[in-house]
């Protein structure tokens, strides 16, 4: 026991005395949260809109006013003629041009069809669709006001976005960042710290000493486990108080599932350290084999449901996918733990299996 304590103490010293490590361990989660929360966002804001209004009547004005007042839209031009549509789109003045038919109001009052065309710059298809959706729902909103004032029985679809009504991307990224950061700290840093001992030759002495290999493993894992927990708490605090992401579910269960996920990551780090012989190799292996899949296949950036079957199947082998899903359910959807049994079982199984393999593989010799 005394051995283990002095071992862990030594590991903490390594971490605390290396400024770069400290910066990586504590600065990175903050930086990533702020980057993903504010800068890198998939939300569509500041939609530049131009209007071509041939009708100039009461109703078109109300729609234009609605556009001008909405915080998501910037009204750039109101009097552009129809043939200028292409110009405003190509020189970037507008992302969307709203074109009203002639005699818009008249046609509607007579009960005829009155057209509004939305012309969008679709060079980035995803955002174009989002912008079109925003505009459509805004116009429908104005229309629904008429519907209540004038009794013309039209069916207006009423779409509600559950859990994330403003479609804020932070809701999606906070669990994703948690998954990434924990993977980075636990897997990469643990493997580096073990491989560093191989590189400097101190591992030779540790192996020659009567110390049990499990102590070496434990002493490497404990400090990063502690730091990972600190990071989880820091991320949650940042999410709630800076990014205003709701924390609907139980914090205790979020911590529990984080513990299991941390165990998975630590085991992966140990596994890498048994394969890699240099710190550079350890970084490369954890970068390519762990970080990339955790980013691309976990559903953090691309929805798992949209992937080809093979990749979807592959993604179920990625621990980050299960963790991120679980945190989303707990944090954003505020679901009860009974909805999470699948994620819990999968992650626990992964943790058990990987810990077993990596401890088995941890060599008592140098080979």
């Amino acid at each position, binding site marked *: 026991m005394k051995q283990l304590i*002095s*071992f862990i103490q*030594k590991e903490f*010293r390594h971490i605390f005395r290396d400024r770069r490590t400290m910066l990586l361990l504590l600065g990175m989660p903050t930086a990533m949260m702020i980057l993903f929360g504010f800068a890198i966002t998939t939300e569509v804001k500041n939609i530049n809109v131009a209007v071509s209004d041939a009708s100039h009547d009461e109703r078109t004005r109300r729609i234009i006013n609605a556009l001008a007042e909405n915080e998501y839209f910037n009204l750039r031009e109101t009097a552009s003629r129809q043939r200028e549509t292409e110009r405003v789109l190509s020189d970037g003045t507008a992302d969307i041009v709203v074109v009203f038919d002639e005699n818009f109001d008249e046609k509607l009052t007579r009960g005829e069809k009155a057209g509004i065309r939305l012309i969008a710059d679709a060079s980035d298809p995803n955002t174009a669709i989002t912008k079109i959706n925003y505009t459509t729902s805004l116009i429908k909103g104005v229309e629904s006001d008429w519907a209540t004032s004038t009794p013309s029985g039209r069916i207006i679809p009423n779409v509600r976005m559950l859990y994330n009504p403003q479609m804020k991307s932070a809701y999606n990224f906070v669990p994703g960042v948690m998954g990434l950061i924990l993977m980075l700290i636990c897997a990469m840093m643990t493997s580096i710290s073990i491989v560093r001992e191989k590189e*400097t030759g*101190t591992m030779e002495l540790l192996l020659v*000493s*009567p110390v049990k290999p499990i102590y070496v493993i434990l002493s490497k894992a404990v400090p990063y486990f502690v730091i990972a927990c600190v990071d989880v708490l820091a991320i949650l605090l940042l999410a709630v108080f800076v990014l205003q992401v709701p924390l609907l579910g139980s914090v205790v269960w979020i911590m529990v599932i984080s513990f299991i996920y941390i165990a998975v990551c630590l085991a992966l780090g140990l596994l890498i350290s048994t394969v890699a012989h240099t710190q550079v190799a350890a970084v490369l292996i954890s970068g390519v084999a762990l970080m990339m899949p955790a980013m691309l296949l976990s559903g953090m950036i691309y929805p798992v449901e949209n992937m080809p079957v093979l990749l979807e199947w592959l993604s179920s082998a990625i621990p980050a996918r299960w963790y991120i899903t679980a945190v989303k359910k707990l944090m954003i959807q505020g679901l009860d733990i009974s909805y999470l049994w699948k994620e819990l079982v999968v992650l626990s199984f992964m943790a058990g299996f990987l810990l077993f393999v990596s401890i088995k593989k941890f060599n008592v*010799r140098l080979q």
Partner: protein
Amino acid sequence: MIVADNIHKNYREVEALKGVGFTVNAGEIFGLIGPDGAGKTTLFRILTTLITADSGRATIDGLDTVTDFEQIRKRIGYMPGKFALYQDLTVEENLKFYATVFNTTVEENYELVREIYGQLEPFANRRAGALSGGMKQKLALSCALIHRPAVLMLDEPTTGVDPVSRGEFQSMLERLKRQGITILISTPYMDEANRCDRIALIQNGKILTVDSPDKIIASYPDSLYAAKSDNNYRLLGRLNERPDVKRCYVSGEYLRVTFNTEAVPALDGVEIKPVQPTVEDCFIYLNSKRNNL
């Protein structure tokens, strides 16, 4: 006591050790001497249970390095070629850490390391990475000794250390030997051989000979001469062309020459004098003899 018996070890295609065998008696300083790449470190790693041999057997105090490795690890002190210190821990922290790792305390065995560690105590709070080569070596030795091992194995402890510290180090080993510790030391420096009780000369994974340095020198078969002229390089070419010159090579400011004849031929402008062979001369002789076989 260390016994190595016909040890073979391959790294893929490279034959690192080709049947190495020797015995180190209890309480002696045994030197394993050979150039870089001779197989010294591989042999050390096998003896310290860090790697296993492909074939052959090694025992330490009768314990097998493969099956009884846990027992062996309790009784050996090992100092790897790279001083295995934590550069970001202080001198004191390093020593304390290794003491706990070996289930002991600095206080318990302070007597054994006092002489060595005493010189480091003024720097107790300095990071190990900021020490000089000689001080690192002393700290590494203190760490290897802190659990009072029965057998001490030092892999090239003097490489990268200044001559004064090297001399001090040898006297330290003498004192440790008097405490009854068996010491196996490897070095690429032939001049360190004389400090050992017995030495093994190793080259290309094979032992050339095992004996005391005096006996190895005494067994040198030829009369050895040192030759020197104002242009040694030209002299080397000249001598190597002569049929009566058996062997000729450079050693410091003199050339070393042996002849096929008893009489030494007279050469103009060349200073020739008989000299005592050194371990290095024996090594060169034994190595070339083996290569000619």
